[in-house]
């Protein structure tokens, strides 16, 4: 025993004197961020400042009209750091509020999509039979419509409002979640541990909750990070078409659309919301790339 200890200590001393760590002491860690990830972090940081810090600025007031300072260019005054629109409203405040609203709508819509998609997909995949046929048939039906046209139609019928788009966006993007969840449920339903749980008296709901749901979470998380960008774009498109959030509430799409009239004299009206949209979508997309590749790397680790 003594011999062993001394030998180990001698080895350690050797390594220490050589200035290197003993093998296995420190695993090589992936320390450097990939460029896309760093870009994403910077972009999302800017968005976070816009959304979180700006509302606390003394100049924050997205609704105050002051025609005497209408169409002021950016960086002229501290009162209106990024200039004003045609009614003299502070652009920085408006862009900040628009981003907040957009994120709120999109987050709600995304959660609704995930909720519908995952519950429907797991149910269809676990129970199979008629439920499966009906559910996946309707999913194909939703998928076969061009989504923007479908949205425009629904919003036109229901009347445009923030709530309407949140719900409508929440009901048309669930198909991919349903498909992924169903595929997972299909592959797991005949696993012996699922059968074993049923043998011990588990109900379908129990199996779905305890054995199926936890295993779709990683894939769903990756998909939401990707869909976040898509939904932001679609929400902006709807507002741009005047079918989304109604004035005077600001929206990125609506601001771009209004700013078009002043494109030659005051281009910042258009450029500013577009830039924010770019930051937002770019940040989210680069981040989702990171998640996707991470997911692929760890796929061997997820239980199959």
């Amino acid at each position, binding site marked *: 025993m003594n011999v062993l200890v001394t030998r180990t200590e001698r080895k350690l001393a050797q390594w220490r004197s050589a200035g290197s760590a003993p093998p296995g002491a420190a695993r090589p860690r992936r320390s450097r961020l990939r460029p896309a990830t760093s870009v994403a972090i910077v972009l999302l940081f800017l968005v976070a400042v816009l959304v979180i810090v700006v509302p606390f600025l003394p100049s924050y007031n997205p609704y105050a009209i002051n025609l005497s300072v209408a169409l002021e260019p950016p960086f002229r005054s501290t009162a209106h750091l990024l200039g004003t629109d045609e009614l003299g409203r502070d652009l920085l405040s408006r862009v900040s509020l628009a981003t907040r609203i957009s994120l709120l709508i999109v987050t709600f819509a995304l959660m609704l999509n995930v909720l519908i998609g995952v519950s429907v997909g797991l149910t269809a995949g676990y129970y*199979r*039979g008629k439920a499966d046929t009906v559910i996946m048939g309707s999913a194909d039906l939703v998928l076969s419509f061009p989504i923007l046209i479908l949205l425009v139609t629904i919003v036109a019928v229901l009347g445009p409002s923030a709530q309407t788009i949140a719900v409508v966006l929440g009901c048309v993007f669930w198909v991919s979640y349903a498909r992924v969840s169903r595929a997972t449920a299909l592959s797991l339903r005949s*696993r*012996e*541990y699922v*059968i*074993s749980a*049923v*043998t*011990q*008296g*588990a*109900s379908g709901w*129990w199996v779905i909750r*305890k*054995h199926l749901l*936890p*295993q779709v979470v990683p894939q769903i998380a990756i998909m939401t990070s990707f869909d976040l960008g898509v939904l932001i774009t679609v929400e902006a498109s709807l507002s741009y078409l005047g079918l989304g959030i109604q004035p005077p509430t600001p929206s990125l799409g609506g601001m771009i659309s209004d700013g078009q009239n002043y494109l030659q004299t005051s281009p910042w009206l258009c450029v500013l919301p577009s830039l924010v949209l770019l930051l937002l979508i770019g940040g989210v997309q680069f981040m989702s790339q990171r998640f996707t590749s991470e997911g692929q790397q760890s796929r061997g680790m997820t*239980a199959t």
Partner: protein
Amino acid sequence: MSNHSEPLLCVSDLVVEFDTPAGPARAVDGMALTVHPHELLCIVGESGSGKSVTMLATMGLLPATARITAGQIRYKNRELSSLPAGEMRRLRGRELAMIFQDPMTSLNPTIRIGKQVGEIITLHEPKASKADVKRRVIDLLSQVNIPRPEYRYSAFPHQFSGGMRQRAMIAMAMAHAPALLIADEPTTALDVTIQAQILEVLRQMRERTGSAMVLITHDLGVVAETADRVVVMYSGRAMETGTVQEIFHDPQHPYTIGLLAGLLDMSGTGKTAYTIPGQPPALTRRPSGCPFHPRCALHQGRDICRTTTPVLADSPSGRAACHFANETAAWAAEKFPHIRRGPSGRASQ
């Protein structure tokens, strides 16, 4: 064991059919068996003889393509085959439990052992407190001889060996002290030394809970050492039934004799083990009459084997489904003198 007590489970004339492209396949064709409280019944038979399907039908766990087309499954005077799904579910795990062959895949690899065993407790007792469940899980793990159960409680299945996983499965199955435990080849996937330990754990657990057990197995050695009674199945039917002494000392069906003769003779005579000629019939094309007659040495071209299906009750002893059960003893004594050595004659290996 005790034939006087009220039977726990009584399967009679059970027919289970699978839908196949080639038409309905009768996996179980007129099966009958009885399990009494506290006893250990072994079901032996070749692969595809309907052992597992009979027990899956009992548990109400037949796959979607299979149907019970005739017969009764009575458990404590309740007809299981017509029980509503919800009631059947409450029965499973609490009164009827089942252990499967492969412990490697029977545990969810992403959930810690303790949590998985605990969930089976909360499944039937949703009001049990967390601390109470944990205490009971650790108690169960130690009962199935898992060393250091407090430590193993938070282990993942991949950190368990095959034998330990099967112990964990036994702990789950015995969590509610079921009246009937069905073990479908519980030791087939394990190596021989572990097999003996698992059987011992099963015996200990049954001693504590008083559960009856149906053990499905290929291993006649296991049967000889553990069983109270034995049912020999062939082609979806019970060929012979009896106590373990009766089956090993006084087998009355030519098929049973063929199985026993197939065991290796360790007395050093150097003879190769006997194999029953031919193959079990396809489920879609069963021979008429006795399903065993094309392979049977006693058939000898007699018409009744082809025309009439023998039933257990018709034989003189009521134990063997054979028209000529009275001839088997003489035939066996002449052809396989060594098998009469009985269950203690190291029949297994």
